[in-house]
């Protein structure tokens, strides 16, 4: 299969099986993600959406199947930080920030992977470490400017309202300059205005930085508005994959959402 703009997939998930003891979280799931698209993963609770993201960023290792990122097959032993270094960043369903640290410092942690100097020279804050910090800081400031969070630069994130914390978390992921961004329910618990802002940011991330986005989202309005393609999971299986409009009218999807009895 070839993407909308004729490109090769940036990420291929092939026939992935994941189980925890007797519980089968993912059953033979295959998904291709194309460069520059916004792909939404939807499905009822427990369908395996977050498990799929965790497999993609190396947090879970599937028992079966393979993952190809940037045309390189991922070795079985890869750890999440190695996956991150390849260019996959993510945000979490429950905000996972350092609450006592400022917005700036939190986003700065997203730059860790790009830091080259040693711990010792950073501690001394001298020479190369100092110059490097300036470069990192400029990148972080670009992210802050992009997400319009200048006014909370120095505020400890624990004191920020939830919607802003989500934005800071997105900022940290962006600071890593990923090729692929995984967003786990980026709009959960937000009001209409915050959702609109977040939608705009996601679209702009794709348009301005060319970052490919995979997101899990429950708000169908948002999914229909911003995604190019939708993948539907139900009980660990992929039951639909296509443009938002086709998926919305898919009988199997409607059944899964309406809770028709499962054999």
């Amino acid at each position: 299969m070839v993407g909308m703009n004729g490109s090769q997939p940036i990420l291929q998930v092939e026939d992935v099986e994941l189980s925890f003891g007797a519980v089968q979280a993912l059953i033979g799931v295959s998904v291709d993600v194309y460069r520059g698209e916004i792909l939404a993963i939807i499905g009822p609770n427990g369908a395996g959406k977050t498990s799929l993201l965790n497999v993609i960023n190396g947090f879970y290792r599937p028992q079966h199947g393979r993952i190809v990122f940037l045309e390189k097959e991922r070795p079985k032993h890869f750890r999440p930080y190695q996956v991150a270094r390849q260019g996959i960043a993510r945000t979490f369903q429950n905000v996972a920030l350092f609450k006592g640290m400022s917005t700036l410092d939190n986003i700065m942690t997203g730059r860790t992977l790009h830091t080259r100097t040693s711990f010792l020279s950073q501690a001394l804050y001298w020479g190369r470490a100092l110059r490097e910090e300036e470069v990192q800081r400029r990148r972080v400031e670009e992210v802050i400017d992009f997400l319009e969070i200048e006014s909370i630069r120095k505020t400890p994130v624990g004191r920020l309202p939830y919607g802003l914390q989500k934005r800071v978390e997105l900022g940290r992921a962006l600071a890593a300059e990923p090729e692929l961004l995984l967003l786990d329910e980026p709009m959960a618990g937000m009001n209409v205005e915050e959702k609109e802002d977040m939608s705009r940011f996601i679209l702009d991330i794709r348009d301005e930085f060319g970052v490919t986005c995979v997101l899990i989202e429950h708000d169908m309005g948002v999914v229909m508005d911003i995604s190019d393609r939708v993948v539907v999971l139900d009980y660990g299986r992929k039951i639909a994959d296509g443009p938002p409009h086709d998926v919305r009218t898919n009988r199997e999807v409607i059944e899964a959402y309406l809770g028709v009895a499962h054999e």
Partner: protein
Amino acid sequence: MLMSTSAIGGTALDTFPKRLLERAQQHPDKIAIREKAFGIWQEWSWRQMLEEVRALACGLAALGMHRGDKVAIVGDNRPQLYWTMIAVQCIGGVPVPLYQDAVANEIQFVLDHAETRYAVVEDQEQVDKLLSVWDHCPRLEQLIYQDSRGLREYGEPFLHAFAAIQTQGRSYDAEHPDFFRQQAAMGRGGDLAVILYTSGTTGSPKGVMLSYDNIMITSCHAIAREGLRDDEEIVSYLPMAWVGDHLFSYGMFYCAGFTVNCPESGATVMHDVHEIGPTYFFAPPRIWENILTTVLIRIEDASWIKRKIFHYFMNVAQRVGSRKLAKEPINAWERLLYGIGDLLVYGPLKDNLGFGRIRLAYTAGEAIGPEIFTFYRSLGINIKQLYGMTEASVFVCVQPDGEVKPDTVGTAMPEVELKISDSGEVLYRSPGVFMGYYKNPEATAATMEDGWVHSGDAGYLDENAHLKIIDRARDVSRLADEHETLFAPRYLENKLKFSQFIKEAVVHGADRPYIGVFINIDLEAVGNWSDRRGLTYTSYGDLAARPEVYDLIQGEIERVNASLAEEPQMAGAQIQRFLILHKELDPDDGELTRTRKVRRGVIAEKYGDLITALYSDGDHVAIEAQVMFEDGRSGTIRADLQLRDITPTAALAAAR
């Protein structure tokens, strides 16, 4: 057009373009303008700024702009937008700055009325706004945006990036090397420099035409009288469409040559002020109030010992500070106490607010509460009241140093003549008086006679030639009681607004038996007050309807009544009934002007039921109100409002 007869008019540097060229030659490396971007203050010297302006001006010419063309400017205070203003003037055009928070149909009116051919805007938000009315503005030809974020997919052929126009300008400049200087030298002092639309509390906005002479002579007088120098630092954060910003960040900037600092965003202004430490600062009363409210809230949340120290030394400051600032004698003990207070409280507080270096601060636009005014003066901040208006290029009166009286707006500025008409209205004449309203000779004739401008304000001159303003002349009205008591709504509203809990008040009473008032609570102050009492609330409307909040506001109104009772001519006009509105009055709903002044006509029409209820017996009233959301959609808010009576007991005490 008449030649300027002013004492300092008619110099060789009679336009801003000429001033720019002169500054760039005399002080090429002095910092002209800064903007905080990416967390750092970016700087442009006069020479660099001239290069930017030159590129833009040539780019606009390459785009087909001619002398006399009008150019709309919409956005926050950005160096690029200030450069647009001067670039347009350099090639003989007329900038028309618009309020950046205006909704689409307000913008449409001005674009259409001003016949603008070009628009230069800040970002996607403004581009979207203009595109939504594009088809209704046939004269508008080209749209230029400064920040390209989110605009990549826009395919409109008339849409250009600011940087691209400058690039075209540089090649145009290379092909026509004499063009820029020739054009820049062409303007004359009497030429139209800018059109500023006044939001107006009634009717459609009017385009006030100001000449270079108007603005430059007024600026130069103010600089001379207040002793401003070229090493001042100011922060430009008030709307560019407002005449105040045009004078402070533009007129006086070119005439004095000081440095303008543009904040990072609207939300970071106070932080940016803290970093810059301006020496000359301007704010309307609501901003001074907000700062004070924030300080008081933070003090309330501090430990008891800090609270005690703060209150003790603020008392000292109240007794000593203003006298010290006025250079009146103070004894050694007071001087010692004030010194300790400066070390422990005033200095750190001023530094925290970014006011540590202020030499001159103004408040204008509305009356400021005496407590608020005294608070800043007692800290040693030289805050002064200014009386001005768009039609006068701002400056009419300023409180002179050493003669600051809280209840007057000071004495006339140089070359400003004042007189009071038989009906009690303030009239003025000065070199700053405007050229007329654009395409509205009837309104011009109604406002101006033989160069004398009707201010629309009722006031009088006291024995020391200080001007005292009472109210808008047309708002002063009479109650329909047995004495036909005269009352000034604005005077009462200001007294109410001096309370930190009251954000806005609308007084009613013309041809009614008593005075009733609508109150808008201050969400931050009342919210904090209720937090400390453990009262919970879900929204503004919910908080506003709490009986405890009604009690709080009743107490505030009773205090106002008590102070009214002390003034013989005001004692009869006390407030007898009030209600707290369920939503904040908002310029987007047309209830306030863009400069946050109450539009009585709109409110009377929209809240007619509430006014009827103020003058009937019921103790509550149901209301449905249309609100406009920021994206232009509208919705309905329903609420049930309580009404409460207040017995003007204090009036009896005064009668005794």
